[in-house]
């Protein structure tokens, strides 16, 4: 097991370094291979993490909760790396410098996101997430356009300011821990959790709110989500998929770690109420913005805000069923949103515009990506038989279990309205015939279809029959989140 942790921590970085030197063809191959291998490595971690905690070298610590988020990141890393091969080939910027920067950035970005859930202490967790910010800001700026420059600036400034608050949260949780663990301890997560009941309340409350606000900036929780639609719409599509499917989830993972400590110190009521406020605000605001969007990638970005709101609401319910639903939702959202962005990327490449009013006839010109894009949107809207249907069902059922009837009702209404907003725009894009001369029927690249097919299969698997190992893993992670065992 220790070897797997080390490999996960070194392989993507090695790939990034290799991309500095090797020719462009090899860079593609190395990156795609590293992505797929990383996912396989994470899969190999599942059985061990489902039954216990794997620690190594003092600073690595992987439990069931980390592995859920590693799965989401690993899956998207593999899918996006393969997809990017086709994306770069089909693009108008085949020049070597662009693609070299792209591959280096992509691998470092994935590396930081894989490293974050493996960190055993809250300080290093913050460092890893800050690294994801700076790398992804450069990736957003890589498209040399006015929009990209604007989006990258807003992103790096807002996310860094948010993370400064998260660093403040780290400082205060350290202060809280110092009361019990002495002046010099290394902010280890297990230590803090074990010391939980004896931590001073005021400091933990302050740290938790700061953490939700700070890491929530990167998760895209309303009202600190404002960078998100810009960055998602202006970044290259593979980067958008990673931002939305894994980066937001990894930041949410950081919130969950603080949630665990807060539950251990304060009991569950206070942290749940904080998450509830942010969750409901995100769901409702995103629902409104999903209607009348003009840019297809902004549309998907607001859908991400909606789904992060669902995650926060699910945790605030606190019932075991809802928590299991939240974890399944993380995986389902990664696959579905990745698919949606990758499908949108094919449409944009083929038809040369991001404007919803300008893209028409997706089904006519794209024999594979058109239907796959519709499936991805249905999956995002939690239609059966896809994974997100099962997860949202579990979350709502958990809400009813914990007698939060009003919030559960808001959730159902919000999710339905969001689906209508999403489906309305997408139907027009894919179904309406293209006026004027249509490009020749055919896919830009097979590389851009295969990962999407795999994503649909994963969504079906999650929705119809989640593997037994995964269910055990969720069960274990739920007991961790629940605070019943530590």
């Amino acid at each position: 097991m220790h070897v797997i942790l080390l490999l996960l921590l070194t392989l993507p970085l090695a790939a990034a370094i290799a991309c500095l030197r090797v020719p462009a063809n090899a860079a593609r191959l190395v990156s795609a291979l590293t992505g797929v291998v990383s996912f396989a490595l994470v899969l190999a971690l599942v059985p061990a993490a489902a039954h216990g905690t794997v620690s190594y070298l003092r600073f690595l610590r992987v439990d069931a909760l980390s592995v859920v988020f590693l799965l989401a990141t690993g899956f998207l890393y593999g899918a996006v790396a393969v997809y990017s091969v086709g994306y770069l080939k089909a693009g108008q910027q085949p020049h070597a410098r662009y693609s070299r920067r792209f591959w280096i950035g992509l691998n470092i970005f994935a590396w930081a996101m894989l490293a974050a859930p493996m960190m055993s202490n809250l300080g290093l967790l913050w460092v890893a997430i800050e690294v994801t910010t700076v790398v992804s800001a450069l990736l957003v700026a890589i498209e040399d356009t006015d929009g990209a420059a604007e989006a990258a600036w807003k992103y790096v400034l807002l996310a860094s300011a948010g993370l400064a608050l998260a660093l403040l949260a780290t400082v205060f949780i350290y202060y809280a821990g110092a009361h019990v663990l002495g002046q010099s301890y290394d902010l280890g997560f297990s230590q803090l959790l074990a010391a939980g009941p004896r931590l001073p309340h005021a400091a933990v409350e302050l740290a938790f709110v700061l953490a939700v606000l700070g890491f929530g900036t990167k998760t895209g929780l309303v009202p600190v989500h404002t960078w998100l639609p810009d960055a998602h719409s202006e970044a290259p599509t593979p980067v958008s998929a990673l931002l939305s499917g894994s980066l937001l989830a990894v930041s949410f993972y950081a919130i969950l770690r603080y949630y665990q400590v807060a539950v251990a110190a304060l009991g569950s009521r206070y942290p749940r109420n904080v998450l509830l406020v942010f969750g409901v605000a995100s769901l409702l605001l995103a629902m409104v913005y999903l209607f009348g969007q003009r840019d297809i990638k902004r549309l998907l970005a607001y859908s991400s805000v909606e789904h992060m709101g669902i995650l926060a609401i699910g945790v605030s319910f606190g019932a075991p069923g809802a928590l299991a639903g939240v974890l399944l939702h993380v995986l389902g959202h990664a696959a579905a949103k990745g698919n949606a962005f990758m499908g949108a990327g094919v449409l944009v490449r083929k038809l040369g515009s991001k404007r919803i009013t300008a893209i028409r006839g997706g089904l006519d010109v794209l024999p594979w990506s058109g239907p796959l894009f519709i499936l991805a949107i249905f999956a995002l809207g939690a239609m059966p038989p896809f994974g997100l249907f099962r997860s949202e069902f579990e979350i709502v059922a958990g809400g009813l279990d914990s007698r939060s009837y009003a919030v559960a009702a808001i959730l159902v209404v919000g999710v339905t309205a969001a689906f209508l907003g999403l489906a309305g725009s997408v139907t027009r894009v894919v179904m309406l015939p293209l006026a004027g001369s249509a490009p020749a029927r055919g896919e830009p690249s097979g590389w851009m279809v295969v990962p999407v097919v795999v994503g649909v299969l994963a969504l079906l698997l999650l929705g119809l029959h989640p593997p037994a190992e995964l269910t055990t893993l969720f069960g274990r992670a739920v007991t961790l989140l629940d605070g019943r065992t530590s």
Partner: protein
Amino acid sequence: MSLAGPVLATTVAAPSALAGGVNVIAVGVLLAEFGMFRQAMLRDQVRLYAAQSALLSALAVVVAATRHLPELYALAGLSFALKVVVVPIVLHRMLRGIGVIGGDPRWPAGSYSGSARSGSTDIAGSHALGVASAVLVAIAVAAFGFFTVAALGLASPVLPATALSVSVAVILVAFVLMIVRRDVVSQAIGFLSLENGVSLTALVVAAGLPLILEIAFLFDLLVAAVVFGLLIRVHHGRAESMSTADLTSLRG
């Protein structure tokens, strides 16, 4: 300080030499933050940031000496090397590369990119509020931060409560600075000084933070500063100015 007397009287006994020294330096950091509001020249802003960082290093030395935490000497040295020397140099280099350090004879106004505006006027005109109003807002926000922290009940015998309140005021004022300035350099400096405020808080409430973590934080800051510099160049390359007034195309 005298304003805070009645509020904090319940939590702080008599200010010891340590508390006195820490408080004086913390107030110095806050004053440097206020100074950034009126700086019209980019170079002066970077210098003020360096001065503020130097104060922080001095604070680390004071805390190290009085609380017997030898690791903090190393932190003080590292933090000085990075924040007072390396980061300002990096920012200077990057800004000089695009010719926006005002007053540099090698880059007279108008000699780059066909832009008629010089670096210094770019910044001077970037206030969303007048300097006086901005400072008034900042004072109000600082006072708010100062007194709310005192009311939170974080106190413990080892905690210099006044310095903690001042450090939170620094953080809030840094946010005000980022909000009221409409040019990319001031916003970046605002972020860097925000990080200084967080470092100040860390020194006050979490002096025992392991050195390895502090080093990781500092390294991160360096990377962030480089990325800010790169994006400033990207922005300048496209907009031909430092102003963020035109960054309004993405909305809805």
